[in-house]
């Protein structure tokens, strides 16, 4: 197999796209203020990121994810989903970051000030 010029261009373009996207995300990153919990798109709880909290999230069909907030770090301590991917996603702390449990349709998102949040909601709806 021999790559032609257009192949190289195309692949480099895809790589460059990821770099651009990554730097745009990294530049726009700020510490968050609010931790928002959504189940199936509906907001079920909201916490200050600065107050330590442990909260049992009831996902779809009554499934459980345990949310922990400590020293500004947010993570899922435990979950009864089969894959445990959400627990393995680790800790988040910046605005715009999130932890997702697909089987329970649970989304934990850190949001910045209210201005940012209202814009996000407009985009999402």
């Amino acid at each position, binding site marked *: 197999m021999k790559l032609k010029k*257009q192949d190289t261009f195309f692949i480099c373009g*895809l790589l460059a796209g990821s770099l651009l996207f990554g730097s745009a995300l990294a530049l726009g990153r700020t510490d968050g203020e609010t931790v928002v919990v959504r189940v199936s798109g509906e907001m079920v709880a909201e916490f200050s990121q600065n107050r330590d909290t442990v909260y049992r999230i009831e996902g779809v069909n009554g499934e459980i994810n345990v949310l922990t907030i400590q020293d500004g770090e947010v993570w899922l301590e435990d979950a009864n989903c089969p894959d445990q991917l959400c627990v393995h996603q680790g800790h988040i702390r910046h605005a715009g970051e999130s932890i997702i449990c697909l089987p329970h349709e649970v989304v934990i*998102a850190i949001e910045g000030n209210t201005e940012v949040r209202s814009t996000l909601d407009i985009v*999402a709806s």
Partner: protein
Amino acid sequence: MTKTKHLVEYGMLAAVAMVLSYLETLIPAFFAVPGMKLGLTNLVVLTALYRMGARPAIAINFVRIILTSMLFGTAVSLWYSLAGGLLSGAVMIALKQTGKFQPLTVSIAGGVAHNVGQIAVAMLLMQTTAIAWYLLALWVSGIAAGAVIGLLGSWLIDRLPKTEGGMA
């Protein structure tokens, strides 16, 4: 090729694709980012695309997605698989049809398209834009996985005996 031979060939390839799908679920390779995977099935789709054409590739992929979701998945995972599989299939066919790109490039574009499709469905289903970071991670992993599959696929496409109308 008779109709029966075609039927057998489609069935065999769909079966191979399903087995690869299943094998992949046994490899918990990447815990860090959910959805990150090698896409072994795409090896079958890529090879079918080059050896048999666009329609068989779509058909085999579609059958594989429906059956694997019924056997191992959930109603939700079906939508993710469909979005990823169909978008990546469409992109690969379009790129191949231009006649300008090597299988490796086609496969890489397919890998990225697959992950973009899944993220798009996730954004729709969960009504959130907060998953932009996953898109970045899955974009990069799509390139890497597409490259591995593309290299294997190119090798396979070159070495399979060329027979009229099919690959069996």
